C-alpha cells in the first residue's frame, strides 16, 4: 500500500486549480490587474460575429414567428403581424407534441446506443495489442471521416430494396422475407436505418476519445483497487467510471445536441416519411417552414425547438456553470 492516490484530478485540471495561491507573486498580481480590458478585447471578435451572424438571425427568426409569412408576403416584402397565432396553431395541434415526443425518444435511443457501445469499443481498444488496435482504429477512423451526406448515400445503397447487399445477406442467412424488403416502407424500419447510420458515424468519436482518456488513468489506482479485493467489474465502477465522468458528461452533451439536430440523414433517407412519421423537430420545422412555405410557422417551430434542446441539456449546462464558479 505504498501509493495512496486519492486525487484523481491530474493533468487536465492542473492548469485550473492553481489560482488560489496565497502569496501573489509579481507575475500573479500583474495577471490579476491585466484582467482589465484585455479579456474583453480578445473576446470582441468572437462576440461580434456571434451577435451579427447568430444573434441577429435569431432575433429575425423570432420576429418572423409572430408574422403571417407565406410566399406572397416574402416576394412582395410584406410584413403582416399576426401575434401569437403561429404558436397557438403549433401548440394547439396534436402534431407538434407527437413530434416532440418522437424527437426525445429518438435522441435518447441514439445517445444511449452511442455512449454504451462507444464506451465498450473504447475499453476494448485499451485492451487490444498494438497491431489489432491499429486495425480497429483504422476502421473507426474510416467511418468517422465519411462525410455525412456520402454516408447517407452509401447506406441507401447498402439497404436498397433491389440489389442491396444487406437484403441479400439477410435472405441468404435464411430470413427470406427480407429478400426484397423496402427499408423505407415503415416508421420503425426507417428509424432503424437512420439510427444505424448515426450510431455508426458517432461511435468512433466516443470510442477513440474514451480510449485516449482512459490511457491517462494512473495504473496505481487499479493496483490499489485489486489489493482491496475488487474484481474487474468493481474496479470498473470504482476507478474507471469516476475518472472518466467529466469526459462522459461532456461527450453525452455533445452527442445529445448532434443527434437531436440530425437533419440530413432523416431528410435524405426518407424525407421524414412514410406519412411524415419519421419527422423529428428539425425536419418538422423544415418541412412546415420551407417545404410547405409557411415561413412564420416554421420560425415558431424552430424557436420551440431551441427550448426543447435547452431543456434536454439543462442539467449539463448547470453542472458546467457551477464548476466554473468553483474555479473562480
Amino acid at each position, binding site marked *: 500500500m505504498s501509493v495512496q492516490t486519492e486525487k484523481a484530478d491530474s*493533468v*487536465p485540471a492542473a492548469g485550473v486549480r*492553481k489560482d488560489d495561491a496565497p502569496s501573489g507573486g509579481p507575475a500573479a498580481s500583474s495577471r490579476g490587474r491585466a484582467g482589465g480590458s*484585455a*479579456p474583453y478585447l*480578445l*473576446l470582441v471578435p*468572437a*462576440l461580434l460575429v*456571434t451577435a451579427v*451572424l447568430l444573434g*441577429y*438571425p*435569431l432575433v*429575425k*427568426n423570432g420576429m418572423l414567428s409572430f408574422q403571417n409569412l407565406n410566399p406572397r408576403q416574402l416576394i412582395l416584402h410584406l410584413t403582416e403581424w399576426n401575434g401569437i397565432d403561429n404558436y397557438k396553431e403549433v401548440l394547439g395541434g396534436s402534431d407538434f407534441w407527437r413530434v416532440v415526443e418522437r424527437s426525445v425518444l429518438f435522441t435518447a435511443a441514439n445517445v444511449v446506443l452511442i455512449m454504451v457501445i462507444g464506451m465498450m469499443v473504447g475499453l*476494448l481498444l485499451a485492451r487490444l*495489442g498494438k497491431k*489489432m*488496435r491499429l*486495425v480497429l*482504429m483504422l476502421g473507426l*477512423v*474510416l467511418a*468517422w*471521416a*465519411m*462525410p*455525412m*451526406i*456520402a454516408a447517407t*448515400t*452509401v447506406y441507401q*445503397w*447498402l439497404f436498397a430494396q433491389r*440489389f442491396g447487399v444487406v437484403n*441479400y445477406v439477410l435472405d441468404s442467412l435464411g430470413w427470406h422475407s427480407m429478400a426484397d424488403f423496402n427499408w423505407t416502407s415503415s416508421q420503425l424500419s426507417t428509424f432503424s436505418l437512420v439510427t444505424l447510420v448515426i450510431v*455508426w458515424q458517432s*461511435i468512433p468519436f466516443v470510442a*477513440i*476519445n474514451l480510449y*485516449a482518456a482512459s490511457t491517462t488513468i494512473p495504473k496505481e489506482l487499479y493496483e490499489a483497487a485489486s489489493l482491496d479485493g475488487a474484481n474487474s467489474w468493481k474496479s470498473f465502477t470504482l476507478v474507471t467510471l469516476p475518472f472518466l465522468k*467529466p469526459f462522459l*458528461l*461532456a461527450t453525452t452533451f*455533445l452527442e445529445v445536441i448532434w443527434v437531436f*439536430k440530425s*437533419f*440530413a440523414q432523416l431528410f435524405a433517407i426518407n424525407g421524414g416519411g412514410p406519412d411524415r412519421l419519421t419527422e423529428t423537430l*428539425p425536419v418538422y420545422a*423544415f418541412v412546415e417552414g*420551407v417545404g410547405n412555405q409557411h415561413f412564420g410557422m416554421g*420560425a415558431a417551430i424552430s424557436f420551440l*425547438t*431551441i427550448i426543447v434542446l*435547452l431543456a434536454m*441539456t439543462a442539467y449539463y*449546462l448547470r453542472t458546467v*456553470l457551477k464548476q*466554473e464558479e468553483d474555479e473562480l
Partner: protein
Amino acid sequence: MKRSLFGRIWPNLTAVVLFIGFAFPVYWMFSTAFKPTGDIITDTPVWFPTDITFEHFKKAMAADHFWTLVRNSFTVTIVSVVASLVIALLASFAMARMRFKGRRGILLTFMIAQMAPWEVMVIAIYMLVRDADMLNSLVPLTAFYMMMVLPFTILTLRGYVAAVPKELEESAMVDGCTRPQAFRKVILPLLGPGLMATSLFGFITAWNEFPLVLILNKDIESQTLPLWLSQFQTAFGDDWGATMAASSLFAIPILILFIYLQRKAVSGLTDGAVKG
C-alpha cells in the same frame, strides 16, 4: 487454461468483427464505384471487383460546372475554418486564462450558440441575405459556416489552452516576454494538435453543409459539392455506380485529411473534450 485462451481470443475476434462493421460501408462505396454496371446490378453481389472501370467517375465528373463546385467547396470550407480558428484562439485564451466579469455568461452564450438550429433558421437568414443583396455569393455562405463551427472551436480550444501548464507562460514572462509574446512563442506551438483536432470538426461541418447553400445560392456558379451530390442522386437514383463514384469523390478530401491528421487529433482531442 481454457478460459485464458478464450480471454485472449475474444478481444481480437471482436475487434475484427467491429473493423468489418465500420469499414465495410466505406469499402462498398469505393468498390461499387469501380465495378462495371453488370457487376453492380446482380442478384449475387460481387464482393471483390475483378473488372475495374472508370466509367462511373467520368459520368460523375461530367456534371455541369463540376470543377467550379469543387473550387467553391474548397474555398468556403478552408476560409471559414481558418477564420473561426483565429477568432476562437483569441477568445479561448481569454476564457481559459483570464478572470473577468461576465465570464460565465459568455461561456453560457457559446454553449447555447452550439445548439443553434441552423437548418430551420434558413428562412430568416435568406431574408437577411436577400435584403443585403448578397444572394448567390460565397461571402455570406463562408461567414455563416464560420459561425456554425465557432462555438465548438472556442469551447474545445479553451480546453487545450487550459491544459498548457501556466508555469511555462509565467516563466517566459519572467524572462522578459510580454504576454502576447509568451502566447505566441510558448502556448501557440503547444496548441498544434489541438488546432488540428478542432479544425477537423470544422472541415467536416462546412464540407457537408447543405440546407443553407440550397436556399441561398440558386445560381450554379456559386453552389457547392453537397448540392451536386444530392442532385446527382436525384437524377441518377438507380445508377448506383455513378452515385457511389460521386460519393467517393465527395468523401476523398475529408478521408485524406482525416487520416493525415488522425494521430495528432486523437492524442489531443481528450484534453479538449474533458474540459468541454
